[in-house]
């Protein structure tokens, strides 16, 4: 449904320095799927989205929505945002305060270039869109009278009312408080599946990305770092950056004992001992590697097999307990279900690092 090929975009910054916001971005979204662009602020995800919307003009590349090429630097094609047939939800909602709820939603229909809607159609379609986002009956309210969550829904209704082929969402939930955000996340996912929407979603919130997406693309400094399903991204990060940005993790640095191909099992010598792990990149013998292992993947017992460490701190978080365990001079975070036995601070414990969960990656810090 959406195809982006080799998209480049630079900004003229202060002075003559150019800031590269998007470097060789390629992506595609199949019909009915939700793709998330995930990354820290300034990583190029919003720029990419705005290029798709047509609000920014890329330097080069190609963008195809449906069957239609909306941007192609080689053939000088640039279709204005108004004619791309997309819906968009902005971070600030961009609800027009001088219009009623009804008029806000009706606007895309009133200015539509594809066809003219008569007022009966508009009434029906607006009512339908508002019902979809559970704002039925709010038609005559002033937009300013709505709460934050309601404004968010209104923005969504406005984005959906003209039945766009593609829905773009630019951090739509980041202005809501935590509880509402979780609820809206769920509703949004449900809506997207039910209506079979094709959507591109931009966020810096990794939990949002994991919860909503069919596919995630992780951005950093204008480049695509990794793409994959939420599960792949979480379990098999391909780089230190992704492992660190998505979820929380522990890093152990060392050098590879025997080289191996990507995906093979091998050993890395660290200050904490020799660790058997999965290679997330291909390594030659002796090269520097960093092992990432998630806190919940580390086994923790009072006695048994494994390496020996000492509990230095313990944080009770409700359903889980976070332990800080000193392992030969390095603190590891270990997450344990609260129903297991509690280990007091100072206790010595045995840690096991499952080889399929410990991922060895190129050590970017020493590279």
């Amino acid at each position, binding site marked *: 449904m959406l195809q982006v090929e080799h998209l480049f975009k630079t900004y003229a910054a202060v002075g003559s320095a150019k800031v590269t916001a998007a470097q060789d971005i390629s992506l595609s979204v199949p019909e009915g799927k939700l793709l998330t662009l995930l990354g820290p602020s300034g990583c190029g995800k919003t720029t990419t989205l705005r290029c798709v919307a047509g609000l920014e003009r890329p330097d080069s590349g190609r963008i195809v929505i449906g069957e239609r090429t909306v941007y192609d630097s080689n053939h000088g094609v640039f279709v204005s945002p108004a004619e791309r047939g997309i819906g968009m939800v902005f*971070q600030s909602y*961009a609800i*027009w*305060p001088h219009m009623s709820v009804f008029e806000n939603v009706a606007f895309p229909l009133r200015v539509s270039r*594809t066809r003219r809607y008569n007022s009966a159609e508009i009434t029906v379609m607006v009512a339908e869109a508002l019902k979809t986002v559970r704002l039925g009956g709010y038609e005559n309210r002033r937009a300013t009278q709505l709460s934050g969550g309601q404004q968010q829904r209104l923005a969504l209704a406005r984005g959906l009312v003209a039945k766009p082929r593609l829905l773009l969402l630019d951090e739509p939930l980041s202005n809501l408080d935590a509880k509402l955000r979780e609820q809206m996340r769920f509703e949004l996912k449900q809506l997207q599946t039910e209506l079979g929407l094709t959507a591109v979603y931009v966020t810096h919130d990794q939990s949002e990305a994991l919860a909503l997406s069919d596919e995630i693309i992780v951005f950093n400094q204008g480049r695509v770092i990794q793409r994959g399903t939420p599960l792949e991204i979480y379990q098999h990060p391909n780089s230190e950056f992704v492992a660190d940005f998505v979820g929380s993790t522990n890093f152990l640095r060392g050098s590879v004992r025997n080289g191996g191909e990507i995906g093979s099992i091998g050993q890395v010598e660290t200050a904490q001992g020799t660790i058997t792990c999965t290679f997330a990149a291909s390594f030659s013998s002796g090269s520097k590697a960093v092992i990432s292992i998630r806190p919940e993947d580390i086994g923790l017992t009072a006695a048994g097999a494994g390496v020996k460490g000492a509990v230095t701190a313990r944080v009770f978080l409700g359903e889980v307990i976070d332990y800080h365990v000193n392992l030969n001079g390095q603190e590891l975070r270990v997450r344990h279900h609260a129903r297991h036995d509690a280990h007091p601070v100072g206790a010595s414990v045995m840690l096991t690092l499952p080889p399929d969960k410990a991922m060895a990656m190129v050590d970017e810090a020493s590279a």
Partner: protein
Amino acid sequence: MNPWPAALRWLRPSRLLMVGCALLTAWLVFVPLGALFYTAFSEDTPFGPGAASLANFVHAYTDNHIPLLLWNSVIFATGTAVVTLLLGALVAWVVERTDAPWRELFHTLALLSFALPGLLTTMAWMLILSPNIGWLNTELKNLFGLAEAPFNIYSMWGMIWALSTHYFPLAYLLMGPAFRVLDVRMEEAAVISGARTWQVATRVTLPLLRPAILSTILLLFVRGLESFEVPRLVGMPAHINVFTSEIQNATQDVPPHFGTAAALGMMLLVVCVVGVYLYRRATTNAEAFATITGKGYTPTPQRLGTWRWPVALFTALMFAIALGLPLFTLAWQSLFQNATPPSFSMIGTMTGDAYRYILRYPIFLNAVRNSVFIGGMAATIVVGLTFVMAWIAQRSAKRHGWILDSLAFVPIAIPSVIIGASILFAYLVLPIPVYNTIWILLIAYVTMYLPYGMRFASGGIVQIHRELEEVAEVAGASSPQIFGRVLLPLLAPALLAGWLYVFVLAVRELAASIFLSGPGTHVLGPLTLTMWEEGGSYGAVCAMGMIQIVPLIVIVIVMRRLEERVSARR
């Protein structure tokens, strides 16, 4: 356990201070207004107001030139408001909404041209566009072999032009915030929805800006009605009289018609009060409008692309004409005795005589001393008084604070001409011996500039979160310590900016001073006018102007720095 009986507790210092401030402000505001009413509704005798009478109104409003006076005032004010709005909106758009170069410079230039005395810019425009001595007319006549001067400053259009070039920065300063808070996503959302450029403009951008535009027009209209310099300098010789010049005329008659002046003033006052009231109401609504964007909003400038430089150059050209031309003319003319069109051939005959003359002219030196002294006193009193009032209003007397606030804002609706005239009426009658001393000028300046002081002070205090004071209190600081060590350092830039602002306004004041300064109490504004109209060479007057303008430029640059410091902390 409180040792203070209930009655004494009521008299706690903060409340006493509040009552004191309220009484002082009420005196400043209501005594002149009372005098205006009294004079207007009393018989006009050579010995002051007599028995109650409506004769003044009959006299003032049955005169057959009243319809013309009204017509002139309305046309002048409306024309100025419209021209000013267009110019101001352009600057506001360029500075606040685009990525054009030189935006900082334009902002500073706007502040600068607003700080220049209207008297001097008006004089400069007369030197440029007068049919007889205007150098631009002379040049154009020579260049195209015209028989008649193409421009005539002594016309309604001339008056509108002279005032608009001086006031358009005000329009920019008023509309700038509205342009700034307009979320560009609002327009983008419309574009995405499929709207064409004109649909975005008419359905989203303009409606969103409508409150700002309407309220700015309203205020500009009121300012146009109140303005005195242009009607006095240009309108009088051109026989285009408006309310302000007519009021001054009436007090200059022999014998003076104070009653008529007061009766005319009542009408002007009512229109201005209604206008300012509507303006305040509109801007409150506008604020309610702006709050919706809230979090997650970042101002994104419109990228002009290839239009960046043309837009910047056009704006620069506008400033060059509106600000550069008058300044250049004053500077040039100050180096020649007689009216001299600028040309390269004349450079050799430049002379500093005018400066030498004016710097040894005792009346001028006396006026400088008076203006600086009264201006400094007025600024100090206004800043001190409004700071205390704003602090009380916002912190310790939440329930009654609005009284102080509104009292201090009343003078904003009173035209300077009326303040000057009615203070004159009041202290001619009251047994307080300030008439014909510099203190009567001080009273006028403090009254007129209370609203500005209040704006700086409450703006400054609003920015300081109450917790900053509370944490000092919890840490054990006493009230004076909190005041001196927390509040004052944080507020210093705002207060200093307020001080400079009031000082600048007071030093260049004309409309009220002209009623109140006498032979022994010269101040710069009226003296410059007198020199222009009845004596001295053009060179001497322009030299006088330049001596006032240079320090003003320095002050504006200092204020700009302060403004940056205040906003950097936000």
